[in-house]
C-alpha cells in the first residue's frame, strides 16, 4: 500500500516537472517567450474584433464578446485534442528505454495546454470587463464549468491517444472532425437559430452546453444548466476511467509498435 502510494507520488512529481519542462522549453524557443501565450490569442481575437465589429457591423448586439467566449473555450478543447492525439505515439522513443505508465503522456499535454489556456481566459475576462460586463454572483459557477470541460477533454484525449498509435492515419481525420465539430458546437451561433426539429440533437452535444454555460455566467449573469453539467461531468469521469483502462490494457504493447 505505502509502495503504491509512493509510486503515485513519484509519477505525479514527474508529471508536474515534465509539464514545467515542456512549458519552459516552449518559452525558450522564441524571443518573446511566454508573452506569446498572450500575444497570440490577442492577435487572434483582434482579427475577429476587426472583422465582426468594425467591418461587418452586423446586427446581433454584443456579437464579439459572444464569439470570443465561444472561441476561447473551443480553442482549449481543440488544442488538447489535436496535440493530445499524438502523445503516446510521440513518446515511443522514451518508452523503449524505461517503463513509464503511458497515461502520463496525455495528462502532461492536457496540463501544458491548460496552463496556456488560463492566460487566454484571463485576457478574455479583462476584455469582457472592459466591454462593460461585470462580475456577478454566478461567477461562482465558473470553476465548475471549467472542471467539467477539463474532465470532458481528458476523456476524449485519453481515447484518442490510446488509439492513434495503432491507427496513425487517424490524425488526419481528427483535424477534419474538429472542424466539423467547430461548426456544430455553437461557437459562432446562438442555439435558438437552430431549427426546432434539430434542437434536441444540437443540445445533446456536450460542447454546446459547456460553451453556453460560459456565456450564461460571463454575459447574462444567469446560473448555467447544473443538471446538464453534472451529467457531462459524470459521463466524462466514466470516460476517463475507461480511457485509462484502455491505455493500461496496451501498456506493454505500445513499446513494440514500430514507428
Amino acid at each position, binding site marked *: 500500500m505505502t509502495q503504491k502510494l509512493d509510486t503515485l507520488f*513519484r509519477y505525479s512529481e*514527474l508529471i508536474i516537472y*515534465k509539464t514545467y519542462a515542456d512549458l519552459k522549453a516552449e518559452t*525558450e524557443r522564441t524571443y518573446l517567450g511566454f508573452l506569446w501565450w498572450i500575444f497570440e490569442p490577442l492577435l487572434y481575437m483582434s482579427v475577429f474584433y476587426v472583422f465582426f465589429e468594425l467591418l461587418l457591423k452586423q446586427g446581433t448586439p454584443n456579437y464579439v464578446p459572444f464569439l470570443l467566449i465561444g472561441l476561447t473555450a473551443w480553442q482549449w478543447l481543440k488544442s488538447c485534442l489535436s496535440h493530445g492525439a499524438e502523445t503516446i505515439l510521440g513518446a515511443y522513443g522514451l518508452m523503449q*528505454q*524505461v*517503463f*513509464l505508465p503511458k497515461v502520463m503522456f496525455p495528462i502532461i499535454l492536457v496540463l501544458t495546454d491548460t496552463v496556456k489556456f488560463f492566460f487566454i481566459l484571463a485576457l478574455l475576462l479583462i476584455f469582457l470587463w472592459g466591454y462593460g460586463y461585470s462580475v456577478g454572483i454566478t461567477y461562482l459557477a465558473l470553476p465548475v464549468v471549467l472542471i467539467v470541460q477539463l474532465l470532458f477533454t481528458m476523456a476524449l484525449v485519453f481515447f484518442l491517444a490510446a488509439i492513434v498509435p495503432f491507427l496513425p492515419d487517424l490524425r488526419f481525420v481528427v483535424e477534419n472532425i474538429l472542424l466539423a465539430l467547430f461548426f456544430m458546437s455553437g461557437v459562432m451561433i446562438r442555439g435558438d437559430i437552430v431549427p426546432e426539429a434539430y434542437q434536441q440533437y444540437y443540445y445533446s452535444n456536450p460542447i454546446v452546453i459547456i460553451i453556453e454555460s460560459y456565456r450564461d455566467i460571463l454575459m447574462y449573469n444567469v446560473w448555467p444548466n447544473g443538471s446538464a453539467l453534472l451529467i457531462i461531468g459524470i459521463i466524462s469521469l466514466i470516460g476517463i476511467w475507461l480511457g485509462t483502462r484502455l491505455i493500461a490494457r496496451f501498456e506493454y504493447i505500445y513499446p513494440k509498435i514500430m514507428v
Partner: protein
Amino acid sequence: MKSKQQTVLSLHNTGSFYKRKRGVFGEPFWAFKDISFDLYQGETLGIIGRNGVGKSTLLRMMAGITKPNKGTFVNYGYQVSLLSLQLGFIHYLSGRENAVLSGMLMGLRKKEVKSKMDAIIEFSELGDFIDQPIATYSSGMVARLGFSVAFQVDPDILLIDEVLGVGDAEFSQKSAKVMQDKIHSNKTIVFVSHNAVLIQQLCNRVVWIEEGISRVEGEPESVLKEYHQFLHLA
C-alpha cells in the same frame, strides 16, 4: 563465486515477438524464442551473441518495458533499469533542468537528483555551463552530462547494452573506468555485448544467445570458447 546465491530474476523458456505490420498487426516474428537463465544477486552476467539475435529486446523485457509472449519471466521484487544516456533530454533547457528531468524519468525523486547534482556537475566537468541551455553545448558536453546523470541512478539491477564509455577520448576512458568499477563491485549487472574481450574481462558468468535461443551458459572462458568455435564454423 559463492555457491548459494539469491536469485533475483528468472527466465524460463521465454520468447517475445513483434508483428510484421507496425509491430502489432499481422504475422508474428520472434525477436527471441527460447531463453532460459537465472540472474543471481551481486553477479555480472554477460550476454553474448551476434547482431540481431534479440539481445536488446531481451533487455527490454528484463527491464519490465514489455512482457514475454511465451514462457515465464519472474522478477523477485527488484528494481531493474536499462542504462540509458540522455534520456528525455530537451534541447532548450539548461543542463541542470535536463539532469533533474532525466533522473526523474529514470526513477529518482526530484530531491534525490538535486542532492546528487554536485556529483553530476563535478563528474561531467561542466562547471558553470550546467545552467546554460544544452542547445549551446558541444556534442561531447551533452554526452558527458548524459552519462553523469545515468551513472547516478542506482537500481538494484543494472542492464547495460554495449556502451560503457562515451564522449571524447579522455572522458570515454574516465566513464568506462567508473563503469567497470561499478561492474566489479557487488552490484547485480547484466552486460550485453558482442565484444568477447570485454565480456571476458567483466563478467562472472556468460549466456550465449544464438537465433533467439540461449545455447550455452556458464564460466566465461568455456562459453566464449564455444562461441568462437561456432563463429569460425559459421
